[in-house]
């Protein structure tokens, strides 16, 4: 049986990779890709804590299902915003979207 620590370290590494992508990418769609990686790392942790805790309590899996639903909603609204911005400003580069800055 794999120890719990392996899953936790893998999830931490995947979260950091996603954080890096969300911070440094210029394209707004690529930023959302990084956010997806972070959400998946969180889900690995939730399911691992269910498996290595009391398996008759389903809290971890229920939380993972709720995270799925929230991720789907986030991607739908986020990509709709990106497409709407692209129509109006003809760009998806995050640095160029600064009309709310001043």
């Amino acid at each position, binding site marked *: 049986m794999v120890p719990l620590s392996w899953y936790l370290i893998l999830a931490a590494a995947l979260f950091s990779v996603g954080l890096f992508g969300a911070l440094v990418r*210029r394209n707004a769609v690529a930023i959302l890709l990084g956010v997806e990686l972070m959400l998946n790392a969180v889900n690995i942790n939730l399911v691992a804590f269910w498996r290595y805790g009391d398996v008759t309590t389903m809290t971890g899996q229920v939380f993972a299902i709720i995270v799925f639903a929230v991720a*789907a909603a986030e991607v739908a609204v986020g990509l709709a915003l990106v497409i709407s911005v692209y129509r109006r400003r003809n760009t998806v580069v995050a640095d160029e979207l600064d009309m709310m800055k001043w």
Partner: protein
Amino acid sequence: MTGEQIIFLITAGFTLGSGFMVVTTRNLVHAALWLVSTLFGVAVLYALMNANFIAVVQVVVYIGAIAILFIFAVMLTRKDLRENTPQINKNWWAGALLAALVFAGLVFLLQGWSGFSKTGSALPSDFDAVGMLGEALVSPNAYVLPFEVASVLLLAALVGAVYVAFNKK
């Protein structure tokens, strides 16, 4: 080293490598396809943890819907994918430093926790995880309220996405 640990290590390397390609590839279509392979690796990890329903939902919802939505979005904004412009911003080293610090901090915090190296016991052979999950989601004593709130959230996101992306011309 048992077979399960070897499968875990192969899957973890595959998942992390694909995740790294997602954030570094120049071509966004390729990044979305690398995201699909990362999500597949995570689904294998769920199956390894005996969370069968979550593994299936990962393939159906994440790969079948979210990744395809990403590919659609990349194609609808394709003109902006000039190959000769930089895909990462000037302060990328600060982002890399922050990500490395977050990873080190998480590992440091986890190492001080007493349950860190816990090993699980095998599930009983007649354990019905899917049935228990279904009952937990609709039982008034458990999680029926978050379940219903999630459905309202999905409806709101559906209406909001259609409204925001609708072409008024």
